[in-house]
């Protein structure tokens, strides 16, 4: 029994700092953010005691008790009670409590201690307790609880060695002692009274201090002003995506062009040169160019998450969400879906009501994820003038981007309204959530998270986008068009002929051969639409010097009408062009029924939206 590596689980209330502690002890980079319900699944990692013996650490979703209210909390109960299939029960528990909110956090701690496993309490966020004017005595707390209590500040890696030493000691003394029989669980009221009494005993002094959280909330949660601030924040985000990315995008474009020249000079004309210039640099490069924009978007979302603003946004949006049968709780996964729908859909596990959760999953792909940014930016850059609206500092391109995001949100709300009255009918969803204190974002954490996102994006570009683009390049390059033919290489190729078939279906909504060609590979990932257009364009240009010098957006301007471009944008607001989203929906809903439903309704909406946009634009003379 002692030979095995001990498994130690981190348990406690939501937002107590379990994942921060997990990261500090294992060196992992689990997501940390300042709102309850960040971690939604069990995560294991390795650490070691001071003398080098290994231990296995498990990070769990936060919960208020061992009676779960949502799917993520059920995981915590199952792991702690040893009911998780295929997993051993943990050998010891580290109960993480927020030192500034002992009244509440000690309730769950008492319930966990009563289980009789070796247990240590991590008195975390001691720095915040001090900020709030609290002086606590860990020794008294330890005496009252009957288990070791170790003060920690997870985000500054303070108290980690003591914590592990205490865990080691607890496991040892547990083996030598007779195991106490688990006591029957006390009533909620008794538990709270006991928690309060212990908290009072352990609090040496409590000075009233300026609670700036209250002052900020007076403004941020103001019924009218608060809403304007939320809108203004989102608006600045989309303006920022344009305004601040211009320079870095220029650098990347310059770098790619220089590489293309170098390759042209170094390699003879042929298969390899075509592959590298048209497929790799032209195709994949056209997607990588958007890295700065994606990072700016992520920076905004990370800052909102780290400060504690997310729950305030949920508070403000609850009124609107309630009208379509959802709750403010659902706004948090939806806002995460601006980055990517996949983690957004996973985050819905923190939603208690099953129908509420299902609806949120089904509308998550309508949130404009960062993979749409390249598509939007390319088309907006080519067809919307880069000017300001009526002499104001508001850029027209940023405004159109904001409009596309808004269409996604409005579309999602309308769809939710319909779903909640049809396939996902159920009781009105409730909304009960804890509101965390504000915190300053930690530069290091934000920096690491940004770097992770950049890495994920580049890996995507290097794998799925790369492979799809190269496959498309091959299908576009063969068979070679005979020199005496009047057809272009693209039209003559395998891919071109397939696209001509699809064109018949999408021609009514204003889509041309270029778009038909881009749509199929873009099923793998939306960004591929851009690399596909770029690759086809590069092949078409061939060795024509003049055509080569034109940028992709200049070429598109010459080939597409404005009506077609707008229809293409409208299509991408709705179309479910992402294999990962379909796969995660299958996993989270346990079957093919809902992902198929999702794909079906989204394609139908995309077709209708593109069509209506096209016909309207043509009616206004933009065809």
């Amino acid at each position, binding site marked *: 029994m002692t030979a095995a590596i001990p498994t130690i689980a981190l348990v406690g209330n939501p937002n107590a700092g379990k994942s921060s502690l997990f990261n500090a002890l294992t060196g992992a980079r689990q997501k940390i953010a300042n709102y309850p319900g960040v971690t939604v699944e069990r995560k294991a990692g390795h650490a070691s005691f001071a003398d080098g013996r290994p231990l296995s650490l498990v990070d769990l979703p936060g919960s*208020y*008790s061992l*009676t779960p*209210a949502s799917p993520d909390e059920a995981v915590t109960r199952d792991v702690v009670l040893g009911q998780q299939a295929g997993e051993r029960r943990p050998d010891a528990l580290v109960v993480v409590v927020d030192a*500034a*909110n002992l*009244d*509440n956090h000690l*309730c769950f701690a008492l319930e966990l201690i009563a289980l009789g496993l070796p247990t240590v309490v991590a008195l975390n966020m001691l720095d915040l307790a001090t900020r*709030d004017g609290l002086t606590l005595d860990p020794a008294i707390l330890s005496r009252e609880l009957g288990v070791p209590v170790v003060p920690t500040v997870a985000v500054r890696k303070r108290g980690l060695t003591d914590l592990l030493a205490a865990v080691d000691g607890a496991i040892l003394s547990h083996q030598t002692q007779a195991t106490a029989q688990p006591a029957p669980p006390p009533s*909620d*009221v008794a538990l*709270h009274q006991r928690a309060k009494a212990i908290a009072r005993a352990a609090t040496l002094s409590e000075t009233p201090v300026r609670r700036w*959280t*209250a002052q900020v*909330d007076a403004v941020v*949660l103001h*019924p*009218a002003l*608060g*809403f304007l601030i939320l809108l203004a924040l989102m608006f600045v985000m989309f303006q920022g995506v344009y305004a601040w990315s211009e320079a870095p995008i220029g650098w990347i474009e310059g770098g790619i062009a220089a590489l293309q020249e170098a390759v042209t000079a170094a390699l003879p004309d042929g298969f390899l040169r075509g592959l590298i210039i048209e497929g790799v640099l032209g195709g994949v490069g056209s997607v990588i160019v958007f890295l700065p924009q994606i990072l700016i978007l992520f920076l905004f979302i990370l800052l909102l998450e780290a400060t504690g603003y997310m*729950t305030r946004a*949920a*508070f*403000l*949006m*609850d*009124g*609107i969400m*309630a*009208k379509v049968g959802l709750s*403010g709780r659902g706004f948090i996964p939806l806002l995460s879906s601006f980055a990517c729908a996949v983690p957004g859909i996973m985050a819905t596990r923190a939603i*208690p009501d099953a129908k509420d959760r299902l609806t949120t999953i089904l509308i998550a792909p309508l949130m404009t994820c960062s993979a749409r940014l390249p598509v939007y930016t390319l088309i907006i850059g080519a067809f919307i003038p880069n000017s300001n609206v009526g002499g104001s500092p508001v850029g027209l391109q940023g405004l159109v981007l904001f409009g596309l995001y808004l269409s996604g949100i409005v579309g999602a709300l309308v769809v939710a309204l319909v779903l909640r009255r049809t396939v996902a009918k159920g009781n*009105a969803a*409730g*909304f*009960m*959530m*804890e*509101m965390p204190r504000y915190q300053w974002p930690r530069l290091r954490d934000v920096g690491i998270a940004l770097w992770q996102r950049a890495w994920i994006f580049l890996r995507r570009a290097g794998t799925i986008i790369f492979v799809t683009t190269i496959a498309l390049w091959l299908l576009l390059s063969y068979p070679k068009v005979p020199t005496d033919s009047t057809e272009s290489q693209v039209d003559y190729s395998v891919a071109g002929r397939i696209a001509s078939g699809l064109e018949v279906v999408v021609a009514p909504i204003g889509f041309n051969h270029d778009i038909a060609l881009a749509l199929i590979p873009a099923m793998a990932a939306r960004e591929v639409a851009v690399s596909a257009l770029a690759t086809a364009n590069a092949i078409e240009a061939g060795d024509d010097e003049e055509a080569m010098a034109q940028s992709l957006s200049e070429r598109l301007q010459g080939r597409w009408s404005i009506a077609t471009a707008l229809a293409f944008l409208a299509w991408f607001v709705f179309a479910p062009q992402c294999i990962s989203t379909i796969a995660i929906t299958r996993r989270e809903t346990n079957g093919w029924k809902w992902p198929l439903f999702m794909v079906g309704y989204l394609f139908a909406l995309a077709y209708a939206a593109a069509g209506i946009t096209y016909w309207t634009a043509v009616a206004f003379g933009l065809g």
Partner: protein
Amino acid sequence: MNPKLDSAKLGIAVRISRIDWDHMSHDEGRRLREFGLMEGIEVTPLHRGSLFSRDPLALAIGRMQVIIRARQAAMIEVAPTAP
């Protein structure tokens, strides 16, 4: 009839005198208790609703702040705190 939490004045602490547990679902009631909302406890309503509705309600319970819906607040009877 006693005043209910959903119409209590913002910024003024009140004491919970009774909660109508029978008119809410089991899970709802349990989550309220897990937040520490139960008879005899002092709470301060802080913020109510946004531009579009009277929902939700943010409360302070001790050092914690929680958000609940007006429908639940309507089932919580409150009395002035003892002076």
